[in-house]
């Protein structure tokens, strides 16, 4: 092996990443070549120096922050809900007092549970909106052309969301992405109105029509309705009037 052949392999040789045959040839060359011997030594010295004095360690406060953030995350809350739901029937088999309690629980829990789930979904929608604006994963397909955005969803989700650009009505279609809400992948359509970004989450409904219901959470306005076989959740820092305008456009 010539020096020219060996030189590009010296780093991989030091890292023990070469196959046995090549490594043997490099070793033989290095033993005969002063330049390559020096190079190998300097690579070893550099690796050691970097490892000893450059590695950054996570501050304790970050550990705390992440444990807290993971605890607050809605995805985790869902597993808690599931476990609670599974617990109720088991307890009913233990004893009569327990059975009575369980009957009461069964009467009460579904109601609480439904509210919890609704509230949980609201939090999930807000979290998805905040995430999409915080870190730049607002859109996977960036286009104001609905003929680009709509086909993009094909094969990524098991339904075809209605995609319309309302630029003429000052709601500009920016793009779309796949998000995950209510235990399923959903289409997220991103609109822009002036400086405001709007996420419209769409997924198939059970077929029932539901009129718009507006609510505010963490400073964001949300609007939820079911129309033409789809659930819609609109979320933005947009004013209530504008939210209703967009809802009307989506329902038209």
């Amino acid at each position: 092996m010539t020096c020219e052949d060996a030189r590009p392999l010296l780093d991989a040789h030091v890292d023990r990443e070469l196959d046995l045959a090549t490594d043997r040839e490099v070793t033989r060359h290095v033993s005969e070549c002063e330049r390559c011997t020096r190079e190998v030594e300097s690579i070893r010295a550099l690796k050691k120096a970097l490892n000893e004095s450059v590695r950054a360690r996570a501050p304790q406060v970050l550990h705390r922050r992440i444990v807290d953030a993971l605890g607050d995350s809605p995805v985790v809350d869902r597993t808690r809900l599931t476990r609670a739901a599974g617990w109720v029937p088991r307890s009913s088999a233990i004893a009569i007092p327990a059975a009575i309690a369980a009957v009461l629980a069964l009467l009460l829990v579904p109601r609480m549970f439904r509210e919890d789930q609704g509230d949980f979904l609201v939090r999930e929608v807000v979290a998805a909106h905040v995430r999409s604006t915080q870190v730049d994963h607002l859109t996977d397909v960036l286009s104001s052309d609905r003929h680009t955005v709509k086909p993009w969803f094909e094969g990524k989700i098991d339904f075809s969301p209605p995609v319309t650009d309302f630029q003429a009505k000052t709601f500009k279609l920016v793009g779309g992405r796949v998000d995950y809400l209510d235990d399923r992948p959903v289409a997220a359509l991103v609109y822009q109105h002036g400086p405001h970004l709007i996420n419209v989450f769409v997924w198939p409904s059970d077929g029932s029509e539901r009129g718009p219901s507006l609510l505010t959470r963490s400073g964001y306005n949300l609007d939820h309705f079911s129309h033409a076989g789809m659930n819609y959740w609109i979320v933005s820092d947009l004013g209530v009037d504008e939210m209703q305008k967009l809802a009307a456009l989506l329902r038209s």
Partner: protein
Amino acid sequence: MVKQGLRLVPAASDSKVAAGARGKHLTGPENRDDFQRTFLPYLDAAYNLARWVLKNEADAQDVVQEAYLRALRFRATFRGGDPRAWLLTIVRNTAYTWLSRNRSAGAPVPFEEEHHPDEAMPVDAELIRRADARALRTAMEELPTEFREIVVLRDLEGLSYKEIAEVADLPIGTVMSRLARGRSRLKRALHQLACSGGRP
């Protein structure tokens, strides 16, 4: 008409992952404790990578937190394998998305390696051994990001070339050449720092 910067994370960690998660509910046996047990041990690795990609401690903390939340969200798509490599892929993608949003100049640019031949004589190993931590950090900060991240993954985190190829989404040959190039630049930077009395 998809912007380069926007593709980086969504392609690797969101749309692909979300597509993989299709139909798979997140209510399996895995829960928060399992997730923490599996991934929190790699917090130092995650932070170290983010710190060196972003070159800023506060930003690195934000990015790592975001990456953990994403990892939790898409944990259904983690199907065994090395949890560290899986987590670091998400950390790297999150960091680059952050860069493309906040500092357009920091994003990786295509690099034509043949135009930078290394004909210089090897830097003396003794000079490298004498380099202090400050000089090493300065040299690292001056290294272009696409080399720096590979050096971090290999020399600070000890990943194999194959694992680095997965995390950085590069062919193994590119990992190998970037690592060699990156180390070579570091050595020359240390040499220059030594000659100029520690000032860059």
